[in-house]
């Protein structure tokens, strides 16, 4: 019995030792590399985001290392980026974040796209007390997900009400020829429900009436009855928040049923070039959200755009700029903290204030930084900025040519 009792701590020590050997980084040690951990969706339905996001994270790390690393507590230390693929699966995203925090000893966690995947990463960050810098999580969804408030998670993205206000205003006021009836197609994921609720709340003030709402799980194959009812409602304006495959199914169904809305606003599934490649001319005229454009004139915008242009003519470049900027925010915070201690780094992130390639980033007390809304429209195989108005913005095509 006594021998067994001795063996238990020995086994535990061995296990801990083996686990430590397995770690890929040594953020905590004095002069080893700083480890950053990124969970991204390299496979699965959200994989079109993953490749561009990884490119942004990697570019910022490469540039930091090209300058010899970052100064931490008077020593210059290299930066290592540990990237894991969550296969677009929320459970895997959480598991990956845990691996990055506990096994890789990541000083800061970076996330994937879309709340169903970013929020599991945030929950791990809170539980393990490791700072996480997220994006692609609209702010209302971000705040709704933590009733007690976030402590280690920071989100930089657009505010849904601002976005909806810009999009619905364009539909209602810039195009007065539409009948101002709105049909909503939303999936049952968290962002889908938030957008659907806000569309209902904000539409009346902008002169639009919600004539039909369809809500269904992501991956629903038969959308015929929903489209038939939307067509029956006579809505000229369609707003959708669906994954890319579901968006494609919906467009095909609308075309087949002869439904010709004059304005189509698409969140989530309409952002990337793959959306346009899948639908071809049908996609023409789709209004899609944005949060960055080279026209905004933030630093390094032109260089990043030319470096990332090969990814596609949709939101791809913005994704690279976004993730590149988040790593810059994180590395500057580590430098300011002078340490990889999670609490010190977390406190330094809170002090962030500056203009990055993505735009001005300053975190509020609720751990969010608001990005400017940029509304874009698919016109001839690429997205063009139609809002805010400026010298280089395009005229919004109306009625939407793709489904006319």
């Amino acid at each position, binding site marked *: 019995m006594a021998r067994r009792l001795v063996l238990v701590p020995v086994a535990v020590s061995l296990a801990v030792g083996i686990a430590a050997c397995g770690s890929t980084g040594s953020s905590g040690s004095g002069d080893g590399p700083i480890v950053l951990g990124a969970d991204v969706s390299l496979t699965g339905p959200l*994989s*079109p985001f*993953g490749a561009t996001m990884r490119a942004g994270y990697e570019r910022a790390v490469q540039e930091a290392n090209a300058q010899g690393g970052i100064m931490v507590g008077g020593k210059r230390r290299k930066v290592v980026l540990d990237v894991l693929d969550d296969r677009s699966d929320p459970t895997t995203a959480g598991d990956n974040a845990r691996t990055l925090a506990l096994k890789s000893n990541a000083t800061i966690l970076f996330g994937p796209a879309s709340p169903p995947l970013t929020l599991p990463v945030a929950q791990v960050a809170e539980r393990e007390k490791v700072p996480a810098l997220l994006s692609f999580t609209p702010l209302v969804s971000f705040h709704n997900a933590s009733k007690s408030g976030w402590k280690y998670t920071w989100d930089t993205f657009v505010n849904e009400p601002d976005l909806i206000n810009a999009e619905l205003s364009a539909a209602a006021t810039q195009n007065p020829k539409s009948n101002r009836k709105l049909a909503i197609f939303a999936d049952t994921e968290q962002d889908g429900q938030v957008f659907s609720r806000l569309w209902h709340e904000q539409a009346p003030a902008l002169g639009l009436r919600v004539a039909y709402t369809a809500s269904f*799980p992501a991956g629903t194959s038969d959308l*015929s*009855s*929903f489209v038939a009812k939307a067509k029956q409602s006579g809505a000229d304006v369609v707003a959708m928040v669906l994954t890319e495959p579901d968006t494609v199914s919906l467009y095909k169904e609308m075309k087949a049923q002869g439904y010709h809305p004059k304005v189509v606003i698409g969140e989530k599934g309409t952002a990337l070039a793959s959306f346009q490649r899948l639908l071809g001319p049908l996609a023409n005229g789709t209004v899609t959200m944005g949060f960055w454009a080279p026209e905004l004139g933030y630093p390094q915008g032109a260089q990043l755009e030319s470096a990332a242009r090969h990814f596609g003519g949709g939101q791809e470049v913005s994704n690279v700029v976004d993730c590149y900027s988040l790593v810059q925010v994180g590395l500057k915070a580590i430098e300011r903290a002078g340490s990889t201690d999670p609490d010190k780094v977390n406190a330094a992130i809170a002090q962030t204030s500056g203009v990055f390639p993505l735009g001005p980033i300053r975190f509020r007390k609720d751990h969010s930084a608001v990005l400017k809304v940029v509304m874009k429209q698919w016109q001839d195989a690429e997205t063009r900025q139609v809002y805010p108005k400026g010298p280089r913005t395009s005229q919004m095509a109306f009625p939407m040519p793709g489904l006319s």
Partner: protein
Amino acid sequence: MASTVVNGILIGSLYALVALGLQQAFAVMRLVNLAYGEFVVVGAYGAWLVSRGLHVDPLLALAIVCPVIGILGYVLQRGLLGPLLSRGLEPPLVATFGLSLILVSLMTQAFSGDSRALDASYATSGVAIAGVQVRVTYLVTFGIAVAIFAAAHVVMTRTRTGAALRAIAGDPDTARTMGVNVEHLYGWTLGLIAAVGAVAGTMIGLSFSFDPSTGASFLLKGFTVMVLGGVESIAGVLVAGIIVGVVGGVGGEVFGGAYQDMVVLIFLLVLLALRPTGLRGREAT
């Protein structure tokens, strides 16, 4: 409601097509094929490659895709699954699960995770039937599904091959002693159902879009239809597919789209409580 029912019938035939491959693998070989969703997606990628490479309609591409995938299915059965079948239900079950993961990885490596769709002039066209607007691809799917089910029924009930398949489904050892080449027929079975999966994948690619992970959701639908239809009845599977399509559509319309799948599963549970063997049970094929 008429539109929902008509579209439910048509889309249900696609679910039935997916379920047919699952059902025949189980009925003939007692093989629970967890990789069948990926067989379907491989078929969609095959049609995508051939139609783009040769600039032909995706349905014409099936003339090349189906034989190629059928041969691959045969080789897979003889080389991997066949030897495992003699060791009970679990080894081939685990093997197909592993195969599913491998196929997803291979497809991701080869084609990336981006969604794709099959192009055809009729892919976004619709026609009116009795005042109900339906998609042309749904109609084509229904026609192809009915033809395949009819052919499967005729083969199983009117041919010597069908008699041999029924014999090995009942007692492979006895069939073997009577001179039936069981392993060869098992190979042909998997080859044929892989080809049917390719047809289903092509129709999915025409109607919706697909990526390497698309197979999982259709596998789930396929198993639901198979259990509902009865694991040994070909006609039962077609009827069950249509019922799942209609019940899902009507359920979505009555209770909201969020409850579409739940309504189907509750319907399945209630029906199984009343008829544990499914719609057609273990009656003759």
